[in-house]
């Protein structure tokens, strides 16, 4: 079994290195095939491990030592337990499909080989993240996915920077840097959490930390919880570190699916779930997490309402769904959060890959106002995106219904009615913007020029590859009870109260009602095509939403620009005119002193005698003074 752990973990790395050897040569289909095959191997290994964990129990392996100094010893160790094996199976399954999909999607791209190298490296980093048995190992994966996302978001690095009016993300390379730097801000928080754990518990191994965290002072646990959550906020793009996520849409679409659905953004949720013994001790922080999550849920959904960019809409919906996950995890329902995480991964990657099909068909057009009527030519993609949107909206009996509804029940059960209410409203918004997007893309009449695009369905094998995702998006909800039994052997079993049980059907009814209303409303507005409302589009709330609450511009004005000018000031004024000028000034004084005293050297003997007499007198005076002073002291 140990070998399987290593196969699951390292197969993607082998694929990445293999593809890297072809990185600078022209497209070679072998890189796509080999990396996809190795990903599949990794998936099979994960699935076998899943079965093993279910029937036998967790596996813990220790590969070798990594860092040691003082009393610190950090190994490369990997734990395959209920939580990590769930993540592994989900990540490798989705990644395999995305790899196969990319063979078609990147067919004509010059960087084909390079792309697969990055993609597999990303999966490897993610596996390190979920499989590590200690916080620093997690941090390797944490930073690793950060770098890979930098590489992948900036994949089309050759594009120039443009203004925000033309492209709100400015350019792929700009978006890549933004993502990396924002994540680094959060990573500092995470590092501080790691430092706190190390100096107070003397170890970073999960099992040892969780076993000994209990007796720690509450204040300390509080800070550990907060700092780790700051780390989670960056990776999971929670407010106020959320702007990179929508800009990350600059990457090729399979990347968006990989980053947004299955992997990187869920890392933060994974961390909170993994650290549940810590968060259980500090319900206040948990509540804070739930509040942040709830806020992000509605905040992101509101931006999705008016956006015209197909991928950005899906990105905001990801953000919003992450909010749901944090709400559940913050309220202590860890397994519910994990369940929504997995279900979301299935339908969201399906949605993204469907969006990729549309983009390809439309020659990289992303503006849904310029689409319409695509269902005639893209039946399968329409079906896939329709199903994914239905499950995202939480319609019975699809997977999203079960996972989202349980989160709402948890909020109700915890008597946090405010959270429940906002998440309930958000469910309606979600249904609306999802179907606004579906209707504008696929229904109504054609709004694009025939000269611009000849939409066509994608390759058959790509469509077939998506079947597992579509199936899981539909049926995964049926596995909820199995999932609960399985994960709660490790995670705390969250039980609803009697009361909640009794009114559960009512909650389901109101939630479904608002979701269906959202869809109906979307149909009424957009079902027959686009009817533009200039007045609405020019109103202030609409503009605020479509400009992302002006937050990117605010960040630019408050952070980026002042930092740049302060940096310039530090260099040109402080460093050059003050610090260095002082140094040169001292040098100048010494030089001029030398220059001036040089005049004593006249070569005239009587001048020298005079100086000698003066010097002798001075010495006597000093000696006298010193004598007096020492006498005074005695």
């Amino acid at each position: 079994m140990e070998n399987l752990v290593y196969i699951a973990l390292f197969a993607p790395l082998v694929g990445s290195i293999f593809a890297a050897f072809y990185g600078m040569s022209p497209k070679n289909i072998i890189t796509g095939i080999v990396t996809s095959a190795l990903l599949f191997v990794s998936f099979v290994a994960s699935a076998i491990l899943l079965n093993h964990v279910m029937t036998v129990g967790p596996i813990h392996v220790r590969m070798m030592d990594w860092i040691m100094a003082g009393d610190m010893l950090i190994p490369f160790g990997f734990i395959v337990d209920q939580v990590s094996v769930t993540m592994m199976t989900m990540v490798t399954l989705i990644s395999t499909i995305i790899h196969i999909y990319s063979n078609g999607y990147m067919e004509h791209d010059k960087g084909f080989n390079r792309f697969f190298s990055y993609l597999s490296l990303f999966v490897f980093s993610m596996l390190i993240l979920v499989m590590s048995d200690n916080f620093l190992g997690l941090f390797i994966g944490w930073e690793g996915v950060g770098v890979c996302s930098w590489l992948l978001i900036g994949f089309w690095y050759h594009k120039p920077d443009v203004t925000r009016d033309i492209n709100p993300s400015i350019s792929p390379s700009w978006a890549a840097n933004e993502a990396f730097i924002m994540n680094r801000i959060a990573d500092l928080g995470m590092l501080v959490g790691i430092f706190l754990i190390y100096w107070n518990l003397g170890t970073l191994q999960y099992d040892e930390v969780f076993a000994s965290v209990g007796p720690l002072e509450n204040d300390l646990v509080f800070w550990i919880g907060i700092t780790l959550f700051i780390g989670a906020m960056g990776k999971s793009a929670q407010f106020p570190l959320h702007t990179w996520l929508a800009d990350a849409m600059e990457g090729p679409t399979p990347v968006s699916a990989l980053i947004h659905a299955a992997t990187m953004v869920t890392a933060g949720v994974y961390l909170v779930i993994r650290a549940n013994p810590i968060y259980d001790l500090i319900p206040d922080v948990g509540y804070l997490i739930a509040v942040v999550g709830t806020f992000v849920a509605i905040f992101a959904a509101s931006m999705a309402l008016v956006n015209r960019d197909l991928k950005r809409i899906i990105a905001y919906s990801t953000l919003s769904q992450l909010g749901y996950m944090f709400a559940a995890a913050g309220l202590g329902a860890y397994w519910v959060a994990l369940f929504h995480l997995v279900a979301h991964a299935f339908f969201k990657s399906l949605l993204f890959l469907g969006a990729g099909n549309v983009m390809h068909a439309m020659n990289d057009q992303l503006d849904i106002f310029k689409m319409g009527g695509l269902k005639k030519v893209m039946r399968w993609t329409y079906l896939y995106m329709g199903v994914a949107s239905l499950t995202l909206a939480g319609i019975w009996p699809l997977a999203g219904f079960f996972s989202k509804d349980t989160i709402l029940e948890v909020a109700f059960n915890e008597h946090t009615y405010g959270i429940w209410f906002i998440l309930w409203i958000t469910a309606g918004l979600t249904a609306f913007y999802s179907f606004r997007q579906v209707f504008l893309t696929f229904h109504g009449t054609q709004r694009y020029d025939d000269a611009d695009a000849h939409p066509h369905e994608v390759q058959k094998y790509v469509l077939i590859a998506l079947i597992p995702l579509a199936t899981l998006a539909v049926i995964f909800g049926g596995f909820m009870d199995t999932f609960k039994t399985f994960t709660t052997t490790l995670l705390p079993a969250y039980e609803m109260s009697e009361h909640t049980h009794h009114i559960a059907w009512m909650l389901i009814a109101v939630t479904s009602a608002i979701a269906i209303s959202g869809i109906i409303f979307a149909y009424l507005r957009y079902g027959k095509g686009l009817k533009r409302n200039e007045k609405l589009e020019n109103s202030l709330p609409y503009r605020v939403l479509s400009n992302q609450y002006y937050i990117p511009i605010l960040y630019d004005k408050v952070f980026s620009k002042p930092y740049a000018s302060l940096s310039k000031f530090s260099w040109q004024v402080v460093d050059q005119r003050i610090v260095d000028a002082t140094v040169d000034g001292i040098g100048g004084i010494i030089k001029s002193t030398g220059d001036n005293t040089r005049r004593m050297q006249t070569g005239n003997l009587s001048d020298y005698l005079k100086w000698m007499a003066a010097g002798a007198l001075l010495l006597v005076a000093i000696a006298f003074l010193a004598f007096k002073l020492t006498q005074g002291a005695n």
Partner: protein
Amino acid sequence: MENILSILVFFPLVAGLLGFLVDKNSIRVYGIAVASIEFILSLWLWMLFDTSNAGFQFVEMIPLVPDFGISYYVAVDGISLFIIIMATLMTLIGIIALNIEKNIKNLIITLLFLEVAMIGVFVSLDAIIFYLFWEFSLVPMLYIIGAWGGERRIYAAVKFFLYTFAGSLIMLIGMLYVAYVYHSVSGAWSFAITDWYALVLPFEVEKYLFWAFFIGFAIKVPMFPFHTWLPYAHGQAPTVGSVILAAVLLKMGTYGFVRFSLPMFPDASVAYIMPVAILALIMIIYTAMVAYAQEDMKQVIAYSSVSHMGVIIIGTFAMNAEGITGSIFLMLSHGIVSGALFLLVGSIYDRRHTKLMSEFGGLASVMPKYALIYGIMLMASVGLPLTIGFVGEYLSLVGFFKVSPTLTVLAGTSIILGAVYMLTLYKRTFFGPVTNDANKKLMDLDGKELTALVPLVAIVIWLGIYPKPVLVPIDNSVKALTSFMHEKAHTPKAKATILVSKTTREVK
């Protein structure tokens, strides 16, 4: 091989002198051969080194001026061993990558003499010998900058020389005073550092001596506000000069803190953690900002060096094995990474004769190999886990966290600000469309450049994944150092701050 250290020190000297007899056309091969032998000798030293022994090894002691206790006294421990190997490696790499035709013979001989001085500094255990090598190292560098530098080379060379020289004089006074105190306590003269270690000084004396040594080391590091010679030196020095300067010469300062300040003045070192740490913080944050404002690629790397040296100082003054081991490892990793980055800047300068970022853009598509290696070094520079840069930075910060969480959080901004200026540099140089016609036909890295760079890439990844063979010997010596400091310290604050680690480890 009892004399291996003497061979290491004097082989380049002899080879350098013989170099005058070598024909101009074969001097490059000669230089590479000598530097390779020297590097292999240093690796051999590592083989012979007993990693479980934390103390000084390969001790050689020949009295020179017995009346004053001055002797030729050399040895290595885990702390100096790897810095020596890095010095021989970077000299070799620097000579391989040499791209200068003018007076190449003099340049190579100068580099060999510089190597003598560098290794001399790191093996000396006699203060006078140490001081001689320390000052002697200035001369070859003065010559390298002054003779092969850019337009303002004379100004830069003189500034470099006078500034560091002035600092060293204050340190020399400190050394003489320690010897004087030693004489008045024991009745005998000695300049042996190991003798000085045993000297327990009253805090009042320690205090002044600490600052005297501090000035000498701080200018060399260079610490804020003594850093302004560095951008000029780097700006004017030829590539090989910058590589050696950043990789090895700066480390003399931080090494000095570990070798002299900590064990000799443990109480003062602890008492002045705060002022030193605040200077280090200014180095980290302020110089990172200055780096961000630069137009010239080489200046970004130069200022980033200062910023990273700040983290090294923080780690050194953590007063626990985690931090000090981390700071020594960071000296090595910074040496490798900044050396490589200066080589990379040199490569593009050789092609375009400019280092201004605005002249470039889109290089990733023209020079993919160059972009790849640059990218790896960039990631090592910003401290990505599994590269060499993470280990030292992480340990230094973790160590200092014990002293002051707040200051550590501020120092930790290094990981953000470092990413800001390095990624901006990378974006401006490598990303975007190729707009400048002069860049459209640039040659990618050639065989010579790859020979110099690929080994560094390999080290960056190897020691990022498996730093154990290097960390354990360093850590063993550092633990001996901290327990010695703890033993020796007499103020309660120092006793409480200096942590003794009980764990012992072996390289298997």
